[in-house]
């Protein structure tokens, strides 16, 4: 990738730290069985990492495996394998990448075998597919499956009924289940301790995301952001390692702000910030670098993204709360990005476009993910209407290389950026509240 770069880009301390953390977790997974440790598989959105830690369980995250495999270009084969075994080409490719990986020997992204889980902790948060996914995995392992049903915030807010329902499930289904699997007795004070640590990292993390309000932005809140969310969305939230990671990261970013520097890219530092974008939707992983390059080559920086909120919308103020441990877990699950209804998602994006002074919104629509994708075209329209800034739409997939068409993505992205540029040059301010959806909206009253 950086073959032409004069020298290897220096890895910053935070990068090294994260690398070490991730490989540490994979090593823990690989040796779990020898060490007699129990493994639990669970999902990122609404994950109960603090609770899992209370039972000394090792955390295996199938979505993260799929991402890592995607970046290593292994998922194409896995998906084929799953399709060969009867899965439709229409369905979520995370699921197929996971099942294909299991079918092909269950080697983790680092090449070491992954252990069979002792329990599946099915956090049904923000995505219906999770439920089917773990039913399918359960079929393979025949292991205990603990279902935590998180109701959807259909009316835009959590209700007492929802919260009570989750807390009750935690108390009567999840905690007893984890006790059974791990043989460890639940200790609420231990949970409080871990939650306290989580909250620290969470505050650092929010600072990191909000640093993008600077001009130029010292970070890319999407392509860089997916690295920054790593510790807090996965097996590390609640560990001192995570707090340390964010402390390091924060230091580095402070330095970049002081120097007036832009984000670091795989090809070195970004020279000029020409466009500031908000991005909705997950990235494509199989061509992640190429995808990113299309942005930084044009001087486009992502200043805020919704994908970095799938594991919690911390910038709206939520923190894990040691004083209300189970209730705050419930609130955390309820508040993940994809568990918020569509109007709330639109409000959030609108806020980002305004607060981060973005040139517009770019939606990366993912073929796999109905949870994100269904309704994005309305989001696009609403944001244009409310902010008067242009939005654009590209289509890719998470981990299915068949659905990443570089020429197509580049064409749309370039057209979009040139459009922003042309508008600027003509000196015409974006027409306030121009209603591009005029006609159909008229039909809607």
């Amino acid at each position, binding site marked *: 990738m950086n073959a032409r770069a004069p020298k290897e880009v220096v890895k910053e301390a935070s990068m090294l730290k994260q690398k070490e953390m991730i490989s540490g977790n994979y090593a823990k997974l690989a040796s779990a069985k020898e060490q007699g440790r129990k493994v639990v598989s669970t999902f990122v959105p609404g994950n109960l990492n603090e609770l899992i830690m209370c039972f000394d369980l090792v955390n295996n995250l199938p979505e993260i495996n799929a991402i890592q495999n995607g970046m290593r270009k292994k998922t194409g084969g896995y998906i084929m394998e799953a399709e060969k*075994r*009867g*899965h*439709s080409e*229409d*369905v*979520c490719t995370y*699921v197929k990448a996971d099942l294909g990986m299991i079918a092909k020997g269950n080697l983790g992204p680092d090449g070491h075998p992954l252990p069979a889980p002792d329990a599946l902790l099915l956090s*049904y948060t923000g*995505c*219906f*597919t999770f*439920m*089917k*996914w773990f*039913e*399918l995995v*359960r*079929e393979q392992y*025949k292991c205990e*499956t603990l*279902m935590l*049903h998180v*109701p*959807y915030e*259909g*009316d835009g807010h959590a*209700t007492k*009924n*929802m919260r*009570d*329902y989750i807390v*009750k*499930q935690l108390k*009567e*289904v999840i905690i007893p289940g984890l006790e059974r699997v791990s043989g460890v007795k639940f200790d609420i004070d231990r949970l409080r301790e871990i939650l306290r640590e989580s909250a620290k990292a969470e505050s650092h993390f929010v600072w990191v995301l909000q640093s993008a309000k600077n001009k130029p932005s010292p970070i890319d809140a999407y392509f860089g952001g997916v690295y920054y969310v790593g510790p807090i969305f996965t097996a590390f939230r609640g560990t001192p390692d995570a707090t340390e990671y964010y402390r390091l990261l924060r230091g580095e970013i402070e330095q970049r702000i002081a120097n007036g520097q832009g984000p670091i890219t795989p090809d070195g530092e970004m020279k000029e910030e020409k466009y500031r974008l908000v991005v909705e939707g997950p990235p494509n992983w199989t061509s992640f670098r190429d995808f990113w390059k299309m942005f930084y080559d044009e001087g486009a920086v992502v200043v805020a993204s919704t994908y970095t909120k799938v594991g919690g919308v911390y910038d709206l103020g939520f923190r894990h709360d040691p004083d209300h441990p189970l209730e705050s877990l419930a609130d955390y699950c309820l508040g993940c990005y994809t568990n918020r*209804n*569509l*109007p*709330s*998602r*639109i409000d959030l994006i609108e806020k980002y476009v305004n607060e981060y002074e973005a040139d517009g919104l770019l939606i990366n*629509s993912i*073929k796999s993910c*109905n*949870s994100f*994708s*269904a*309704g*994005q*075209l*309305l989001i696009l329209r*609403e944001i244009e209407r409310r902010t008067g800034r242009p939005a654009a739409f590209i*289509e890719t997939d998470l981990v299915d290389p068949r659905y990443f068409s570089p020429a197509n993505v580049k064409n749309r992205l370039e057209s979009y950026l040139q459009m922003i540029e042309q508008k600027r040059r003509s000196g015409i301010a974006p027409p306030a509240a121009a209603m591009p959806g005029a006609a*159909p909206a008229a*039909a*809607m*009253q």
Partner: protein
Amino acid sequence: MTTLREINERCSALYEDLNFGYAREWKAAKPGRKVVGHMPFYVPREIIHAGGGLPLGIFGGGDQLEVIHGDAYYQSYICRIPRSTIELAVTKRLDFVDGMLFPSICDVVRNLSGMWKVMFPNVYAKYFDVPQNYRDDIGGTFYINELNELREGLGKLAGRRISDDEIRASIVLFNENRRLVREVYAFRAAQPWKAPAADVYLLMRAGMTLAVEEHNRMLREYLDAADKADARKRDNCRIVVTGAFCEQPPLNLVKSIELSGCYIVDDDFLLVNRWEQSDVAVEGDPLANLAHAYLHNSAHTAAKYEDTEKEKGMWLVDSVRKNRAEGVIFACPSFCDPALLERPMLQRVLAEHKIPFVAFKYAENSGQMQPIREQAGTFADSIKLWSVQ
């Protein structure tokens, strides 16, 4: 006496009417009447009815609706039903609908509920969640509270509180409806040549539009008339269709399956009216009774969590046995995650029980039936040629 042909024509007319003339007339007949639409799948229609409302099933646009604006809201890789539903709405075909319920079936319908709120802020739009935990003290409690919230919402729409007694009375009527529906299914399973799949489908579809009292009458008339039908039994095999619980197949597909040599003896089209599989108790707290029926005695589909691995798919095996079917056809909408992710699990169970199956996908507006006939026909051929007679 109403003839089969008359019933059939009435049902076809209701099915083809994309302007929902019947519901409009029903609403206009008395001031203050409310129509509450719902997407396919389960919603407690009793509560709508108890509030004096008409539950109206919105099952997409079928193959006759030209979708122009709907595509503006959905990418090509999302199933058809939400886009045709949006098309119905933006072309003002649903402008008389006072409320919309979006059952908990998948992320697409879930997000559609939010789109409705944005696009039609004056309509009562609710995402109606159901528990995936089946313990009375956990999921049950949650559900009763949700039902109460729905009762309040619909009460506001009706302009009054919906009483327990009213709900009880509705439960009685809907129990009757479900009983008759079960009877029609049983009749067809016994003599499928007398109850062609397309006719039964239209009869059930009518129930998504008509007032329940009227549909009950129609079902009774149908049973009478169909029994007397003079139809020749054909050399067809008997199959169960599954996977079509949300976006509906085009009528031609239902016909094609039968034409290519398969009698449909059970299916999961329009599960709404067969959701509770036996009577809902009438005495006592009606919401608790509805919750109880939901938790312990409702249909199995991909949208529900199966909490016991051993039980996975057994309902399908049971249906095959009970209806003496010789095979299963999986007909799933293209891009339907719930149906398509469920499919391999069900297929494994069928294979374990040595029940043959075949699978294909459709869209509500699929035009070319040739590949469908080909697959259903080959399936029928193989059962016919190889069955041990």
